[in-house]
């Protein structure tokens, strides 16, 4: 059919971690193959980590009058006035991952409410409703961490047998995770479970350094974490994700809107399947899906540890190699 080519800018707030790199690569791959092949002229604008720089960058993007802007926002609220201006200028705006509070942009995100609900439920069920656990509070000041902390606290309140004996902040960073877990292990002779928001491998190493047996761990879906989990004897774990290909989803959404097929809702939230060594029964969120960890099938020891799983949305075929940039 008569398919127009759209100019789309991806405004990215920061580049300093593996997740963001894969996000950018997924965006690039998504306009080269599959349904969007040849339909999008994609420009990636990256700034280094300040709200002010992203606002500047967005102002420049708006001045270039593109068809759409997809935004990975460095702040949930600071960009609002700027994005509203973009909308007012007739530009389709899609915010993904850390979604903004401004009403106008379309939004694509992981269903964090379900995820944050299921994380503690799994740990509590695996422990049989009884035990002492430690919890990672993520990155201080970040809205995602804050929401997660609140939800986890609320859920755990329903398991009187589970006691949170300590918190640490990993800043989603491996070294800090290892240091935090090590300190808590030192302070607590008994720890039965660990809930990290990051790599998990730091927690595993801390357990080993302290000479402790492995305990159930919830961690984020890095390939390295999943591999460690699958290969470590006796380790039970659950791995939740927040896929970097949200950027591809956002581009697709923008194109759909431009093509005249907007989604029914302003906000699209996806509840992704979680990988685990132990599928347990419990009061999980509606539609929650657990998949058994399997080396070679959903975990790839040969691929880099920093790859985030899963690599591709259903509507597209981003190979793990493409996502890892190793093709």
């Amino acid at each position, binding site marked *: 059919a008569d398919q127009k080519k759209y100019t789309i800018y991806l405004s990215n707030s920061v580049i300093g971690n*593996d997740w963001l790199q894969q996000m950018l690569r997924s965006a690039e791959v998504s306009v080269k193959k599959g349904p969007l092949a040849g339909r999008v002229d994609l420009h990636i604008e990256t700034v280094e980590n300040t709200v002010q720089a992203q606002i500047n960058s967005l102002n420049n993007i708006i001045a270039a009058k593109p068809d759409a802007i997809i935004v990975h926002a460095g702040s949930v609220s600071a960009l609002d006035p700027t994005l509203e201006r973009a909308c007012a200028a007739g530009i389709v705006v899609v915010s993904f991952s850390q979604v903004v509070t401004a009403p106008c942009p379309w939004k694509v995100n992981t269903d964090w409410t379900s995820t944050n609900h299921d994380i503690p439920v799994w740990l509590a069920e695996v422990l049989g409703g009884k035990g002492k656990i430690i919890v990672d509070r993520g990155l201080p000041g970040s809205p995602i961490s804050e929401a997660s902390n609140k939800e986890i606290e609320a859920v755990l309140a329903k398991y009187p047998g589970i006691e949170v004996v300590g918190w640490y902040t990993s800043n989603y960073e491996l070294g800090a995770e290892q240091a935090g877990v090590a*300190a808590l292990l030192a302070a607590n002779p008994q720890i039965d479970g660990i809930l990290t928001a990051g790599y998990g491998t730091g927690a595993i190493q801390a357990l080993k350094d302290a000479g402790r047996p492995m305990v159930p761990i919830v961690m984020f879906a890095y390939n390295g974490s999943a591999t460690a989990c699958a290969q470590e004897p006796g380790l039970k774990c659950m791995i939740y994700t927040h896929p970097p290909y949200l950027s591809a989803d956002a581009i697709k959404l923008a194109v759909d809107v431009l093509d005249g097929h907007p989604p029914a809702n302003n906000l699209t939230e996806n509840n992704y399947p979680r990988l685990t060594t132990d599928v347990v029964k419990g009061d999980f969120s509606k539609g929650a899906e657990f998949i058994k960890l399997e080396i070679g099938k959903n975990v790839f020891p040969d691929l880099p540890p920093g790859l985030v799983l899963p690599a591709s949305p259903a509507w597209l075929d981003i190979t793990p190699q493409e996502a890892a940039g190793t093709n």
Partner: protein
Amino acid sequence: MIPWLTNGLRSPSPILLAYLGALLIFVAVSLYSPGFAHPAHVSTLIVIAAFTGIVAIGQTMVIVGGGIDLSVPWLLNSAAVATTALTRSSDAALIWVVPMILVSSAGIGAINGLAIALLRVPPIVMTLSMNVMLMGLLFIVTRGFPPPPTPLALQWIANGRIATIGLPVMLFVWLALAAIALVVERRTAFGRYLYAVGSNRTVARLSGVPVAGTTIAAYAISGFTAGLAGVLLTGYAKQSYLGMGDPYLFTSIAAVAIGGASILGGSGSYLGTIAGALILTLLTGLLPIFRLDAGALKVIYGAVILFAVAIASPQLRRFFRRE
């Protein structure tokens, strides 16, 4: 005996007091939470402190020479990514990869030094820009892909314990580097030049001190130690990841400052920096124990740093002596 030690004992130097501060924190926390002093945990703390300590070798030299190195995070990160990307998990490859990385890291540091010494770019601007440029270049070169896991030999160095005595391998790595740093600082002409340049460039220049050379060398050393820390850190994390250098920006500088060096140059010693690294590590290690929220933790963190430096204040001592 060693004159600085005896002098130090007669009128306690800031350095001695910094160690005292570290000890105080350690004892206090151990009393509150006995597991803190468990050998396994102490070993972990030493390993963590060692990374800060190694980065801070170069930072100490640069600060003593009157500069500051803000390019540490992405220099470290680049070295780490290069280590895993180039070795492809092979121990044998370390033999050529590590020296190459260390030389390149020193080279990048030297570029900082060149621009600062010869083109008169203020250190803050130069190294901040270098940090950003390295970040960009790293992505251009690697296209941002996450590299394979770290070779096992490196994992052993960073995580290993020497079986017979139970001490971490990293402790010995750190001690060896610290010894070299102290000898360079106290016993070599370069060390003297560094203090001279940091104290007063004009005097240094007129006294025949190779001001530019000294500055360049200091930044090269900083590049080297940041690079080395990056290499070793991949062993600790078993992989490299983007952002792994970020925590070392302020900790390396704070370690130097807590260790008694003036941030304006001309004074300080790596001996003090070691105490600074220990204090900072103890702080991050102890805070989770108190079950406080992030906000309260930050308040305490700041307060303890303030306390640790305040006890070294001559003013405070004078005040108490008067009582």
